[in-house]
């Protein structure tokens, strides 16, 4: 397993550049809108936008491993909770600024992803998936038993006062989550358009053949697993300030476990905008439905949608629109 052979690296002119300027501009435009409108609209809309952007980060993170490499991470809620509890633990120790807490959460969750991957990724992919399922249970056991971060009773987190250019702390959280979503999407695009994404796609299609043609399989998979875990952890880091009271059931929430998988699969796993589309569509629908019907019934709908899509439309919304456009052309 040495460096990638030159024959595999793509000819530069045929692929778009790994760095996507349009996404950066769009992200900054959203931040500008949030800065100007954030103080005027009702807080409900800020919370709604925050939740949807959080799902963009989670499903993009999931898709880096699940969509590009074909390895299913069932432990999203666990990684998300690791991010939450990193913030809480840091907050109990000292007044750590949020961006620093997010970085710390990314490192901790990324290392957990790396460790799980290192132990299971050399075997068949299903073992990794099963390990992540069990990992979420174990992490929850750890947190329930760890009284420093509140244990099973949960922990209250004080929202700090608003920081200078922002009208409220919620607005600040929203801008932070927007930047995080932008970074996650940019990272996903960079992976998709570089030799890393090609290597991961080769692994997804035929792992043995990929290894044989010089793709450093284990190292690429570990990179994807680490990034996947890190983004999920970072998505969870601001969450304690968002809901101000965190207990194990809310951090290891069922909604996050199922949405992180349902959103990329319903949107489409092949491209970076599938998970983004899935997160926006499903996230928005759920927020509307939660007001009208109970949240449990809401999750039931997500579960049914997930099953319907993987059985009938495995390429997701993106795949359906592509096929439809292809037929018209």
């Amino acid at each position, binding site marked *: 397993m040495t460096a990638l052979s030159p024959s595999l690296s793509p000819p530069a002119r045929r692929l778009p550049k790994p760095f996507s300027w349009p996404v950066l501009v769009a992200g900054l435009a959203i931040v500008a809108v949030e800065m100007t409108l954030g103080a005027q609209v009702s807080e409900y809309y800020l919370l709604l936008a925050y939740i949807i952007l959080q799902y963009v980060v989670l499903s993009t993170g999931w898709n880096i491993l*699940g969509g590009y490499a*074909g390895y*299913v991470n*069932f432990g999203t809620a666990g990684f998300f909770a690791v991010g939450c509890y990193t913030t809480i633990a840091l907050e109990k120790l000292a007044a750590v600024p949020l961006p620093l807490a997010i970085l710390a959460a990314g490192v901790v969750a990324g290392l957990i992803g790396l460790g799980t991957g290192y*132990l*299971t990724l050399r*075997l068949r*992919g*299903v*073992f990794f*998936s*099963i*390990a992540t*399922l*069990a*990992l*979420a*249970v*174990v992490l929850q*056991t*750890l947190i*329930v*038993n760890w009284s420093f971060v509140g244990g099973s009773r949960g922990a209250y987190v004080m929202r700090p006062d608003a920081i200078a250019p922002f009208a409220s702390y919620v607005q600040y959280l929203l801008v932070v989550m927007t930047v995080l979503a932008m970074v996650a999407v940019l990272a996903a695009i960079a992976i998709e358009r570089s030799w890393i994404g090609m290597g991961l796609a080769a692994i997804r299609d035929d792992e043995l053949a990929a290894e044989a043609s010089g793709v450093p399989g284990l190292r690429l998979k570990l990179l994807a697993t680490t990034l996947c875990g890190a983004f999920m952890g970072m998505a969870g880091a601001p969450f304690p300030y968002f809901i101000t009271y965190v207990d194990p059931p809310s951090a290891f929430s*069922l909604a996050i476990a*199922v949405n992180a*998988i*349902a959103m990329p*699969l319903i949107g489409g*796993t092949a491209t970076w905008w599938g998970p983004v589309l899935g997160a926006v569509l499903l996230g928005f629908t759920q927020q509307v439905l939660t007001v009208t019907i*109970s949240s*449990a*019934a809401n*999750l*039931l709908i*997500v*579960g*049914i949608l*997930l*099953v319907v899509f*993987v*059985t*009938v439309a*495995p390429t997701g919304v993106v795949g359906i629109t592509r096929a439809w456009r292809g037929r018209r052309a």
Partner: protein
Amino acid sequence: MNFSWDLLLNAVTSGIMLGGFYAAVAVGITIAFGMLDIVNIAHPAFMVLGAFLAFLSINTLGIDPFLSALGFAAIAFVFGRYFYRAYYHFFERRGDDSLQGLAFFFGIMFIVEISLVLIFGVDYRLIDLPYLATTYEIGIVQIPLRLAAPCLAGVAMLVAIQFYLSRTFTGRAILAVAQDLEAVRFVGADPIRTKEIAFGIAMASAIVAGVLLIIIQSVEPSIGREFIGRAFAICVLGGMTSLPGTLLAAMILGIAETMTSTFFGPSWSPAVAFGLLLLTLAFKPSGLLGR
């Protein structure tokens, strides 16, 4: 952590009894995952469904759970056959049964769990069988019938399935499917039908395990998730395709868990299975009795 011999002996005894029940949970995983290569992570969710069916049948119809388990198992067997046929139609036939198939079972697990929440709520449910209330004492070792009976039933089920697999034509065809799908065709067995029957057996075993579960402990809809790690750890440690291996691994996990909960506290026992799974995957992925 206070150590004493009678604590240890009691921990081992209840570990063995727990192991018998775990064998009942894992036997379906060994068949579906080990032999048929179907990663049915919804198996524990169906088990919890079985537990609630037993709860309903004793509380509304007054039918003894051991008796109703047989009826439910028969229904689950038929359901499992159709379920596999659908799975085959949508995933195996298309050849993309890894990512989509996993997500499919995850979705099914979720639907079963949330449906139970919507119907029964999130409260813990327990059934009380007066004839299992006695506890035998042999020396310093205590044997509560509430644990011993599910253990015996679980082991009996595993032994019965093992006999079926090794003594009948269809049973041997199932074992053959696990080894070489193409070769099964040559000896005149239909591999799809064979896998259908095997998956039906696995589904029936999940329901029976659920009935045993609600005899042992109180049950709430999401409790199945604790058993995913356990069942797969047992299956892998046992050697994937071996039912005797499953029984042995179930006993090992049962003893390890009761030891942990006796000496470190019961809240740590869900972590034991994960540790065992990771250790097995890292050091002996072929399992104890694997080929």
